Structure formats: C-alpha cells, structure tokens
C-alpha cells in the first residue's frame, strides 16, 4: 500500500489523489468532520478513526468513525508536532500554512505506516481541517457580533417596552428575564421596595439566592455594579448569599432613592460550569437597572395620578349628590325672611340644610352636619334627606321625627357615621318655634333689641347611641328677631395662624348686619369668614341658614 501512495519523490501519486478525491465526493452530503473520518476509515482500512479539532477552549473530539468498543481515545499530551504512533494509535497532525488545525487518531493500522499516512492524509486533510476550524471561528465571531447586536437591541426594546409598561409585575419580569438571558446567568432576582421599605415586588428565576428580607439593608454602592466572582465564600456588599457561586448585583435608584435591587448569579458555560461575570455583563446590568429605575418611577407616578383622579371623581360625585339635595331656592313665606349659603370645600363634606313648607302654614327648617367627608358622607346626607321628606308628615312631633330619622339611619345607612341635626318648626303668624337640636352647634338668636342668646343642643347626635332620646324645646320669635343656624365649618374656619373664626366673631358678624335684609346679611357673614380665612384651604363645608321674623 505504501508504495502505491507515494511517488519516487515521496509525494502523493496522481492515483492516490484521485482515490482520495473520489472518497471525499462519496461522503459529500456529510458534515466536513464526519466526511474526513469516514474517508480516512475507508481509505486506511483502520478499525477506528477519530478527529480532534482545535477550538477556542482547546482540542475537542469533533467526529469519530469505526469501532468504538475500545473506549474513548485521548489526544497525547503534549500534542505531537509530527506523526506519532502511541498505544496502538497513529496520531497524524493535520496542518496547513504551518499551523496544526487538527489531529487524526487512526487505530488498528501498522505503526510503520505512520509517515506514509502522515504525508498523504496530513497534507490533504490539513487544509480541510483548517477550513473547518476557521469556519467555526468565523461562526463564533459572527455569534459574538450577533450577541452584541442582541444586547443593543434588547436595551432599545426594553426602553420602549418599559416606557409603556405600568404594571409593576410585568415590568419586573421584563427587566429580570432580559438581565438573566443577556448575561447568560443561571438565576436572577429582582426586589422592589415601597417608599417605607416594605417589599413591593419580588421576582425570582432559577431559585432564590438573595435573603430578600435583608436586601433593604444591603450595602450596595449607588450607581455601581457589584461583581463578586467569589460569592460562594465571600459576602457580597456585606451580605452572605445563598446557593450561588458568582454574582452580579446593582441597586435600582432614582434621585438617590433606593427603589430596589437587581441581581443575577452563576453565569453559565457551554460545558455546564460557572464562568466569571465580565465587565461587559456589569455594564449591561447597570444599564438595565437604570432603565428599570426610570420605568418604575414612571409607573409609580402613573399610579399616583390614577389615585388622584379617582379621588377627584369621588369628590365630583359627592358634590353632585350634595347639589341635588340642597334646595335650589327657598320658599317665600309671608312674615318670614329666609336666606342660606353653602360653601363646599374641596373635600366635599356632609353639610345639609333644607326648608320645608308644612301644613297649616308652618315652616320646617333644618341644618345637619355628617361626620366624615366624600361619597360616604354625601350618601348619608342623601339618606337623611329622604328620611326627613318621607317622615315629616307622619311624625307626631319633632322629637318623634328625629327619633324616626335616627332609627332609619341605624337600619338603612351603609356606613357607621353620625350627624348633628337641628330641626325646627315655626308658626310664622304666632312666632312660636319648636325645635330639637341633636348635638348641633349652638344656634344664635339675635333679638330685635340686639341681645344674643345661645340656642343649645337638646340631645346627642343622630346615629351615635342606640337608645337616645331628644327633648323638644320651644321659644318665641318676635318680629325682628333673627335665628342663625350654621355648621362648624363656619366657626372652625382657620386663618394663616391656624386661629379659628369662632363663636364670638360669628356673633359680631350677625350683630353688625342686623339691620340689613337677611340675604345681604348672609352674604356679608360668609364674606367675613372668607376674609378671615384669607385664602387658606378649609377642611369643612360652611353652611349658614338665617331666619328673621318680619
């Protein structure tokens, strides 16, 4: 065989070239490395052929053919620079352009054929192995370039995606999954905090390795990524991690506020080992953390805006309820001057006033103030309004009416609230006034003479005690006498120094305008309260109802 492969000058004969070329053509549909070992096997009639190719990480068995029952073949170390017969295997370096690209291990041929095979296969296959190896390197380089492109695209996509993502859990998944996949980490954790330090969101993939309860106290430097490639034995930023070998961690912050922590661990290698995290990984994680911080802040602001909008809607609803309930105009009653004002605050409360024309020319009037604010208070006012209008003709007395309203509230009101309630009935002709004041502020009775009397409460507020009873009182209103009912929003209006308008100022204001028509007086009193408050925000509705017997 040897003589037929080489000519007298020791080069391959034309016949040998042809045979080899034919063999290569026969296996043309096989991958390059398989083709080489198949050709070598058939051409040398060996028992087994194995091909080692130089990869980035070292020599790797790329293909084998023949009988493998003898167990795996190992490339000798150090690798031979020329043909070597060792342990029943001939090792042939496959080289081109002076560089060894692969080794063929040929088992089961005579050691004396090593040189001959080396010349014939080594020179022909060297170029093929080189081409294969370089194509692999090109592929790897291409893969690297594509991976970098993927990182850039991911950063861009993440920015786009997060800018429209307002659900914290989806946002956290998006950031965590991309961080893990692009650093080739085996596991990762993203923990987000509320402003008060409570955990807002916790996402894990690949198993927990951060003691989440302690993450808030973690000494992570702001704006820097902590790379700990010895995390299994060395604490990371002062905290011992669980079941990970290497880790990469970064704080998620906005404007110096710590919003959370993003960490990945155990960078995978193709052979199943754990690689060190690189500076490129750290840079990438830092960019993800920055984007996450901005997105989380946006989501938080959005949540606050929605909450604000919800409150605004609720207040509008409460205001609408209140507007529907308060009388649009007061009845015109001979012998009586009536005027009322209601100034709702931004936080709509539960003030209610009403004037009702009753039988036999009598006039019923009331002022009520519900505890609490917003829709619940407005709904309770609505309940009281309905109860008053339903029961007023049925009740045998004012005390009976108040008792009925109290029971109605206990039975039907959706919320456990109470209200102060003044209800009076005036006979305009005689000036006889009967009333019940259920825990309401003392009314002001300004006599024509100028003297002022306090009209005190005659019982507890409605809805407060189960077996409450109210005394009905009466008084005489003579012509020129004026009764002023109000809610505590008037007397408790505050100025810049947080001083209240108070009973005395209200009495003065009533007294000062006692000669004026009650409509003007009502406006003047409300004007004085507004002047006193000087634009300071007020927290309670202000209601004023004036009656003067003429």
């Amino acid at each position, binding site marked *: 065989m040897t003589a037929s492969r080489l000519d007298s000058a020791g080069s391959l004969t034309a016949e040998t070239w042809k045979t080899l070329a034919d063999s290569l053509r026969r296996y043309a549909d096989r991958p390059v490395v398989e083709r080489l070992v198949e050709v070598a096997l058939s051409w040398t009639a060996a028992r087994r052929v194995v091909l080692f190719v130089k990869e980035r990480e070292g020599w790797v068995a790329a293909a084998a053919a023949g009988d493998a029952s003898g167990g795996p073949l190992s490339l000798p170390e150090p690798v031979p620079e020329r043909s070597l017969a060792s342990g029943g295997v001939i090792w042939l370096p496959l080289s081109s352009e002076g560089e060894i690209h692969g080794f063929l291990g040929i088992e089961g041929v005579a050691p004396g054929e090593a040189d001959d095979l080396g010349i014939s296969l080594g020179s022909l296959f060297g170029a093929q192995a080189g081409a294969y190896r370089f194509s692999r390197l090109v592929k790897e380089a291409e893969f690297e370039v594509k991976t970098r492109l993927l990182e850039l695209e991911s950063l861009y996509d993440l920015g786009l995606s997060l800018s429209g993502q307002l659900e914290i859990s989806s946002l956290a998944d998006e950031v965590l999954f991309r961080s893990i996949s*692009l650093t*080739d980490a085996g596991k990762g954790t993203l923990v987000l905090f509320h402003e008060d330090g409570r955990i807002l969101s916790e996402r894990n993939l690949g198993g927990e390795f951060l003691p989440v309860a302690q993450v808030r106290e973690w000494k992570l430097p702001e704006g820097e990524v902590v790379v700990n490639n010895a995390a299994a034995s060395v604490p990371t930023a002062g905290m011992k991690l669980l079941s990970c070998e290497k880790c990469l961690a970064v704080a998620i912050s906005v404007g110096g506020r710590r919003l959370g922590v993003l960490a990945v661990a155990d960078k995978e290698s193709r052979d*199943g080992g754990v690689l060190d995290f690189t500076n490129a990984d750290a840079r990438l994680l830092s960019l993800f953390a920055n984007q996450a911080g901005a997105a989380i802040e946006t989501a938080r602001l959005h949540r606050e805006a929605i909450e604000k909008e919800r409150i605004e809607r609720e207040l509008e609803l409460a205001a609408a309820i209140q507007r529907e309930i308060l009388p649009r105009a007061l009845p015109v009653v001979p012998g009586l001057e009536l005027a009322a004002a209601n100034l709702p605050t931004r936080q709509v409360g539960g003030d209610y006033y009403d004037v009702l024309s009753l039988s036999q020319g009598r006039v019923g009037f009331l002022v009520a103030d519900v505890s609490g604010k917003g829709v619940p208070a407005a709904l309770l006012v609505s309940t009281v309004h309905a109860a008053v209008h339903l029961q007023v003709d049925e009740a045998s007395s004012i005390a009976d009416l108040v008792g009925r309203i109290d029971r109605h509230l206990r039975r039907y009101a959706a919320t456990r609230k109470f209200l102060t309630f003044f209800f009076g009935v005036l006979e305009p002709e005689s000036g006889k006034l009967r009333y019940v004041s259920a825990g309401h502020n003392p009314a002001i009775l300004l006599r024509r003479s100028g003297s002022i009397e306090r009209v005190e409460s005659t019982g507890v507020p409605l809805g407060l005690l189960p077996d409450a009873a109210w005394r009905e009182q009466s008084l005489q209103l003579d012509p020129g006498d004026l009764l002023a009912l109000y809610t505590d929003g008037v007397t408790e209006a505050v100025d810049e120094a947080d001083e209240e308008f108070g009973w005395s100022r209200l009495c003065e204001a009533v007294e000062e305008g006692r000669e004026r028509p009650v409509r003007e007086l009502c406006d003047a009193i409300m004007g004085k309260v507004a002047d006193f408050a000087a634009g300071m925000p007020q927290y309670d509705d202000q209601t004023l109802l004036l009656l003067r017997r003429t």
Partner: protein
Amino acid sequence: MSEACKIAVERRGDVAIFWTDGYINNQGGEEIARQAYSQLDSGARALVMNLEKTRIVNSIGISILIEVLEKVMDRKGALAFCNLTPTIDKTFRIMGLAQYAAIYPTQEEALRAVAPAG
C-alpha cells in the same frame, strides 16, 4: 415559570413536536438537543418546536439550538419554531436561527408548513 426546562415530545409520522416549558439555557438546550437527535436518529424528518411556555432563552441555549438546526439541515430535514414571545422571536431573528428555521405564529401553521408536499 419552572426553574428547570421541561420538554415534552410527541411523534406524528415523520414529524416530532416539542413543547418546552422554562428557561432554554445550557441544561434546557442540552435536553432539547438530546431528544432532537434521538428523534432524528429514529427517522424524524421534521422538528416543530412549540415555545409557548418559554419566556427566556440565553446565548448558550441559542447556540445549542443552532447545532440542532445544523444537524437537521445536514440530514435535509426541517426545523420550525412556533408560539414564540415577541422577545424570543426577535432574538432568534437576530441570532440567525430564523435564517434556516422557519418561525410560525401557531403550531398548526408550523405543522402545515413542514408537512410533505402533495
């Protein structure tokens, strides 16, 4: 999503359908490759990989899928992916997997595409 990637395989004629559930990383990729080679060795001509329950793939998982693709192409077979998340879809396109393996929105479309002509 579970920690380890789970693979389910069903053979329909000469088509093998793979359902993945979890992270396609080194472990997940190796498991896919092992089962893919087993299917190819037992005569499967086409592989359809349904990644509906996979939301994350890393570069090692992708390189293993490329090796599977090369093996399928060596054997003149076909490989199709379906039900990819937008992120994985884009990743496959950037990394070159979509150059030789087709991507379909649904499993039905993928199966129709790899079915023998006629």
